[in-house]
């Protein structure tokens, strides 16, 4: 048994839910969270995205550039969705690949992380089943 914690973009929640069902996941828990990632040191990676963001802002706003940079280089916190999924050992790779497939974008950074944790036990409240039977 493994616990998969996936932190993903807010606007990818719908496709992710669909992909999870297709990957055979019966249940999951989703939470709203805020997060940030590794600091981006190579500015070229985020240059394109920064241009796109700045095009949407007021060009006379002196703070626009700073806000966009902080948003993209990982220093500011931004909203994301945290999925918690319980899975059997052999399902893990299928689920991970399914999540990666629908969440990957062309922006190079900020697509999220997937963590896989060992799980000691799980119990179904209704029937008191333990272990793999509870998932």
């Amino acid at each position, binding site marked *: 048994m*493994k616990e998969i*914690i996936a*932190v*993903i973009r807010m606007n990818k929640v719908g496709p992710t839910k669909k992909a999870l069902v297709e990957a055979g996941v019966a249940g999951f828990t989703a*939470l*709203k*969270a*805020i*997060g*940030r*990632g*590794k*600091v981006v040191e190579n500015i070229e990676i985020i240059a394109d995205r920064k241009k796109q963001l700045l095009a949407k802002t007021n060009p006379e706003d002196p703070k626009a550039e700073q806000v966009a940079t902080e948003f993209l280089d*990982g*220093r500011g*916190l931004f909203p*994301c969705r*945290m999925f918690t999924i319980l899975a059997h050992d052999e399902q*893990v790779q299928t689920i*991970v690949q399914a*999540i*990666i497939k629908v*969440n*990957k*974008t062309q*922006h*190079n*950074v*900020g*697509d*999220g*992380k*997937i*963590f*896989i*944790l*060992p799980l000691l036990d799980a119990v179904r409240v209704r029937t008191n089943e333990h272990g793999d039977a509870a998932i």
Partner: protein
Amino acid sequence: MIMVRAIIRPDKKDSVLQELSRAGFNAATVVDVVGRGKQNGIKFGDIVYDEIPKSLIMVVIEEAEKDKILDVILRHAKVGENGSFGDGKIFISAIDEVYTVSSGLAGL
């Protein structure tokens, strides 16, 4: 790799995150949670508050950096010199694998 989950006071969240970033742990996920601790919440006469707001900070790091991150959180999350009830807890769990979605590769 290990996952550090720290449940701290919401008003200490910003300073802890700032100090974590300064210490080289920029990546973090934050969730607002409610809960109670060993003291069973706060009692004022007959009124009991047992759903106290806290912030949950999740950070995944290499195991070798555990002491460093614990030091940062413990130093900046407490109230007063010796700490107070309600300052929170830190949980550490094992991580088997990590994937970065952007690259699709394993690793932090």
